[in-house]
């Protein structure tokens, strides 16, 4: 699609270049949201509901207001009225209603965070409490079909199940999980005559700007959002959540003074979303040789009663395997809980757990090698839509992974290998993630002082956007990377879509390519000082014609201690087909980081809700376990050369999420091979092996 990129002699794309933001990050000088040095800040601490459902009858704030340094107690009584934008989660302090435990019902603004926190403890809240229900179950009688996911049926799955010689019909579950980026969600809000400035930990400065402008009835030009560095997000910093609204409400009461709000780790479990738990009934109907005649997944997920969010775990079943009979359904349980949100690979990540374990069960039932089983069910076109794939190299990933992992000598019988008291097994699962593109980005290129200044309001949440966009700009302009000066992370720059759905690099990068082309067309190769051009992201008509996805294969070795049931994962190997890799160093980090989070999902992550109190009880990093270095031993990510002329001018596919997809299934499948015990729920803890 792009001769410009093909003919470049500089070839920054594909080069193993160190992180542009690396020196700032290792010297402690990269500025995160809470760290912008502003004069005389005030500190905000939220008051959170201690009932699950009801309404606030009265706040008694006398003791809180008497704490030295307290400036204001903010409640629905004195908070500014916000516009109704159809998002109940963001209607912060707009009524006395309590919809979930931990909901923000007020805040204390004080001279120090300690005073604010102490005062919050002294606020006495009288509630009118109502009965609540937070029990998640597929047996609930009030499950409903969400509007965005009507049942998807092709052929007759029930008929296929009834007549097939081999069937698998099991229920798999994934738990509630919390994103937990290392940087807690943080905001500094400054309300001045000119407007509102937000220093925000976000995946998209422009989406924060437009949403906040709408909520507060401001011209978007009067809202500025600044986020040069963001300490991870994994989805929770994509859509807006209540804290940023709360900070702006407080700042409005204190014009001219910066108001700082950093959530505690505990508050991160109440206020910024989570991955919904899922219950997945998976059905496979097959011939004796493993060829599928039917495939189905019935997903139950939870949502908040006051705001709907659907974890679309059925999605990958539209894409993965050929079968004439197919049925995909989603049901939601509306509970008195906080709203779920995006967490790394929403839909695909939980939605590839059940089906990929079921495929392993089918391989066992048919006596077919699990790699071969997947190859046999490779579709010619995207099964649900019938569209051709722009590129699909799942088979190449499976073959290359099998070769690298040493799969060929595998004895398919489970529980055959014991080493020093450890049962040893190996497993495989496939990965997939859509190659999306978000509309709306604009980039500007300006030549000045011998450098090309490239400006776009993109966000780097640790993905490497600072680095890879510099590389893309260099090749698009045909200059060395040292000639490019990139600016991102500020809503005063040209508009950018958010970092989500693995669309950042491809959407912003394609926009930069368009802007570079516009620049060269207008100003040639010897531009005058001050020459400038800008362009928006062009439409890609191929998006209508082709199904676009990245694929991968993950192989795991698992050891389960025969006496204690302890589970270890000494080896994890992934091979991915994700188009052109812009920077191998940052790309490897993304793949390996995703796989590690998948390992963490397999073995540890589990937000435990106490139905009596309606909240997550293991709400800190002492009790909510994430993978530590001891969990990660030999972890490898590889990729195959994949040329895709249709996806975008870069030939690249997003890679931030695919690494987490399929990992947990590969590990569970390896544990079955090690022990003969089939685990169908996550996390896979030692008690599963001690029955």
């Amino acid at each position, binding site marked *: 699609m792009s001769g410009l990129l093909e003919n470049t002699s500089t070839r920054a794309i594909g080069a193993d270049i160190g992180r542009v933001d690396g020196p700032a990050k*290792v*010297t402690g000088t990269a500025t995160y949201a809470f760290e912008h040095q502003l004069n005389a800040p005030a500190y905000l601490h939220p008051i959170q509901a201690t009932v699950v459902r009801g309404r606030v009858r009265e706040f008694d704030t006398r003791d809180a207001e008497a704490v030295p340094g307290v400036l204001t107690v903010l409640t629905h009584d004195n908070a500014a009225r916000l516009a109704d934008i159809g998002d109940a989660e963001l209607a912060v302090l707009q009524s006395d209603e309590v919809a979930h435990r931990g909901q923000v019902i007020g805040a204390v603004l004080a001279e120090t965070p*300690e005073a604010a926190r102490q005062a919050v403890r002294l606020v006495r809240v009288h509630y009118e409490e109502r009965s609540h229900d937070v029990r998640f179950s597929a047996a609930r009688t009030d499950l409903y079909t969400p509007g965005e996911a009507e049942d998807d049926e092709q052929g007759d799955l029930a008929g296929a199940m009834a007549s097939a010689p081999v069937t698998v019909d099991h229920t798999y579950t994934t738990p509630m999980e919390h994103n*937990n*980026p290392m940087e807690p969600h943080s905001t500094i809000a400054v309300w001045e005559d000119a407007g509102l400035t937000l220093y925000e930990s976000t995946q998209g400065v422009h989406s924060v700007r437009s949403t906040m402008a709408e909520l507060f009835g401001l011209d978007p030009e009067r809202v500025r959002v600044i986020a040069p560095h963001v300490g*991870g997000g994994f989805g929770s910093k994509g859509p807006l959540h209540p804290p940023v609204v709360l900070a702006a409400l407080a700042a409005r009461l204190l014009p001219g003074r910066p108001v700082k709000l950093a959530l505690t780790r505990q508050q991160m479990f109440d206020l910024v979303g989570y991955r919904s738990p899922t219950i997945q009934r998976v059905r496979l109907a097959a011939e004796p040789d493993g060829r599928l005649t039917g495939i189905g997944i019935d997903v139950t997920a939870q949502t908040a009663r006051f705001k709907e969010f659907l974890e679309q775990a059925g999605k990958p079943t539209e894409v993965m395997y050929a079968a004439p009979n197919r049925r995909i359904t989603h049901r939601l349980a509306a509970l008195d809980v906080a709203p779920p949100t995006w967490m790394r690979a929403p839909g695909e990540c939980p939605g590839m757990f059940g089906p990929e374990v079921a495929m392993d069960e089918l391989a066992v039932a048919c006596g077919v090698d699990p790699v071969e089983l997947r190859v046999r069910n490779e579709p010619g076109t995207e099964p649900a839509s019938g569209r051709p794939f722009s590129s699909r190299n799942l088979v190449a990933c499976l073959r290359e992974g099998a070769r690298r992992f040493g799969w060929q000598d595998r004895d398919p019988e489970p529980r055959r290998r014991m080493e020093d008291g450890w049962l040893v097994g190996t497993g495989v699962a496939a990965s997939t993630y859509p190659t999306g593109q978000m509309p709306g980005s604009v980039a500007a290129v300006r030549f000045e002082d011998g450098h090309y200044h490239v400006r776009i309001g993109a966000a780097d949440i640790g993905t490497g956007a600072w680095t890879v966009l510099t590389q893309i700009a260099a090749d698009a302009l045909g200059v060395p990377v040292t000639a490019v000066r990139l600016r991102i992370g500020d809503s005063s720059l040209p508009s950018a879509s958010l970092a989500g759905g693995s669309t950042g690099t491809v959407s912003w990068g394609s926009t930069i390519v368009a802007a570079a082309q516009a620049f060269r067309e207008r100003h040639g190769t010897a531009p005058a000082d001050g020459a400038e051009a800008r362009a928006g992201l062009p439409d890609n008509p191929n998006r209508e014609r082709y199904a676009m996805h990245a694929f991968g294969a993950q192989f795991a070795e698992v050891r389960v201690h025969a006496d204690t049931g302890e589970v270890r994962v000494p080896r994890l190997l992934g091979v991915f087909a994700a188009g052109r890799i812009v920077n191998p160093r940052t790309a490897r*980090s993304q793949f390996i980081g995703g796989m*590690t989070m998948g390992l963490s999902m397999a073995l540890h992550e589990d937000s435990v809700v106490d139905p009596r109190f309606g909240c997550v009880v293991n709400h*800190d990093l002492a009790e909510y376990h994430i993978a530590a*270095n001891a969990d990660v031993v030999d972890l490898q990510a590889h990729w195959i050369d994949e040329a895709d002329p249709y996806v975008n001018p870069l030939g690249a596919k997003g890679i931030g999420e695919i690494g987490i997809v399929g990992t947990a299934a590969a590990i569970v499948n390896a544990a079955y091979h090690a022990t003969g015990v089939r685990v169908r729920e996550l996390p896979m803890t030692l008690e599963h092996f001690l029955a």
Partner: protein
Amino acid sequence: MRVSFEVNGHEVTADNVWPGESLLYVLRERLGLPGSKNACEQGECGSCTVYLDGVTVCSCLVAAGQAQGRAVRTVEGLAESGDLAERRLSPVQEAFVEAGAVQCGFCTPGLLVQTDDLIERTVGQGGGVPDEAEIREHLAGNLCRCTGYEKIIDAVRLAAERTAAQRDGGGPA
């Protein structure tokens, strides 16, 4: 109360410190040194690791008053020249960038201080380059959500090898 101590070689004083304030808070909010991060406030994640009189501590768990009269060294004090503008990175900082051990960067400062300590205790004391088990043990208290740890361990090894080569060869490796 007033608290005076040394940070990265400079005498500093903070006034009106509430006795319950953490050293981390004083560094970040009063002294303009936000390099040390606040990610859990309970000593689980290691993002706030600093040296206190040469021993690494989670500064979120140290009361500011405990630093009175003592020497603190933070990530901002690791660069060799001490001059951040010149960006003369220490071997540990350099290795983290080079090995691809940095992603979002929020756990990085704590890991750098802890790694610096490991190298000081091994190579710096005339010992050998720490093996993988020693590296993993020493970094056991530092959580990272992005990288998958593998490149962090590579970076520590690289920094230790370079420091040893520098020591043995008398010049940069």
